[in-house]
């Protein structure tokens, strides 16, 4: 835990901030291309954030101080959770601060305040968004934690850095438990980040929105923080999927050359993942709210099968 490793950890956290809008822009661009449109530029999310930060923020008459504080709390908790996930290097001290259960807890904290902000103004939209968000997350949580437990029981640790190191060490082994856990986590990630088929990130129709309903009343810098937090969450889940299951290329020290290679490799992996996400969003339609439990039950079943494969077949 030397000073330079803390420095690299800080650099990693800043990289998360900087690259989150880029991933969102990339997914939007690929989706547009698949739908025969040119689409907005890759840097458009940055311009949107810049514009929103410059605009004046307004609050409803009925909003309380919690409404004002919530964007900062949501943004901070999501950013802190993201910075604990190994991005370009393993063995950084931030991984020791927060293990995977703490990351889930921080994301839950962000979600709690997001939903509170939704209920704060006293309109029907916010309440609806909050109710649906808690409903989806309640069903997604056991699937996510079960998939994570499978990984933790194989690597004998909940520390993400240890899990990545373990996978790097034993990468020549075919594990059905990892395969099931990956599939389950992909479904959970779709639900948690609010992508199709669970929620449509581009809509503002009240019958179809979950995340957008909760942030409907926000404007200006508050809205910018909420949007940035949502993009960070997408990047967080993307990095979790690519770096824990396919960690090859990550730096295992703080040598500048290894770090650069690590960055390039993870960006390539994320670009691929983004393209796959865009393709699936184009191919699938958004589900009715009460079909979402079926999807999350499938995720839970996959996670359970992963655990059972680990216990029965792999030990």
């Amino acid at each position: 835990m030397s000073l330079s490793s803390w420095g690299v950890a800080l650099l990693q956290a800043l990289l998360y901030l900087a690259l989150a809008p880029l991933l969102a822009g990339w997914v939007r661009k690929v989706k547009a291309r698949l739908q025969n449109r040119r689409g907005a530029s890759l840097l458009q999310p940055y311009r949107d954030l810049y514009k929103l930060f410059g605009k004046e923020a307004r609050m409803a008459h009925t909003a309380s101080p919690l409404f004002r504080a919530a964007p900062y709390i949501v943004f901070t908790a999501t950013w802190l959770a993201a910075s604990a996930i190994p991005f370009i290097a393993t063995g950084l001290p931030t991984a020791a601060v927060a293990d995977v259960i703490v990351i889930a807890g921080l994301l839950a904290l962000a979600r709690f305040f997001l939903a509170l902000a939704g209920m704060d103004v006293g309109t029907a939209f916010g309440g609806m968004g909050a109710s649906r968000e808690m409903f989806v997350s309640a069903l997604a949580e056991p699937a996510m934690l079960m998939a994570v437990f499978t990984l933790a029981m194989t690597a004998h640790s909940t520390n993400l850095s240890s899990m990545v190191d373990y996978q790097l060490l034993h990468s020549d082994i075919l594990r059905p438990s990892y395969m099931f856990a990956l599939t389950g986590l992909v479904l959970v990630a779709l639900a948690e980040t609010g992508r199709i088929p669970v929620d449509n990130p581009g809509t503002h129709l009240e019958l179809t929105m979950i995340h957008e309903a909760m942030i409907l009343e926000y404007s200006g810098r508050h809205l910018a923080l909420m949007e940035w937090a949502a993009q960070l969450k997408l990047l967080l889940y993307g990095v979790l999927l690519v770096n824990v299951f396919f960690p090859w290329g990550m730096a295992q020290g703080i040598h500048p050359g290894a770090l650069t290679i690590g960055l390039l490799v993870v960006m390539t992996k994320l670009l691929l993942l983004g393209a796959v996400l865009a393709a699936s969003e184009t191919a699938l339609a958004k589900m009715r709210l009460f079909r979402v439990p079926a999807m999350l039950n499938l995720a839970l079943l996959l996670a359970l099968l992963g655990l059972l494969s680990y216990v029965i077949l792999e030990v």
Partner: protein
Amino acid sequence: MGLDQLSLLQQLMITLSAMALFTSFALLEQARLVAAIHAFAWQGVLVAMVTAVVAASGGLEHLFFSAALTLGLKALLIPWMLHWLVRSLELDRHKEPLRHPALVIMAGVALVIFSYWLVLPMVEEELMFTRNIVAVSLAMVLIGLLMMVVRQQAVTQVLGFMSMENGLFLAAVSATGGMPLVVELGVAFDVLVAMVLFGVFFFQIRESIDSLDVDRMNRLTERTDEE
């Protein structure tokens, strides 16, 4: 006996059998008939692949023939016949959702754990690896039986019965390196004949009671004075 001590082919076997278990669950849960038939076809493919891997790792050539037979029969011919049956019975769009899917999944998981508990006494060192796959195949058999209990449509009952047979085949292949070719061929033709007979019977049943709901077959009792 960790995973890292097994050869690549053995790891492949384990992965494929885990995927076959997943197809068992998919069969259990699937509401749409056509999708269930496809899941059964994939199960056939996976079992055939496991047979091929066992043949490659053990150098047992007759198993390659067995694998081809399974592939042809279980993955291609029988699903095609079922598909044709479904289309002629006009059931392609038929959906039969489970009433309590969560309970059924929990029962399935419980069966898997129970199968594992049953095979635990087999602790001999060289049998450990196959013992685990036998646990998975036993679970597949039990889940097939559970499917026959839980589902009402006659075609899905047949699928449950067939998936039981898949599980038994997988157990035989992984534990004992396959059955003698004569037995293999005999079983395969028995299954084929059974399929043809099922087809004939379905038409007859539908004509008698105008539905293929297994629960309604109790109309075929002697108490005709109630009708």
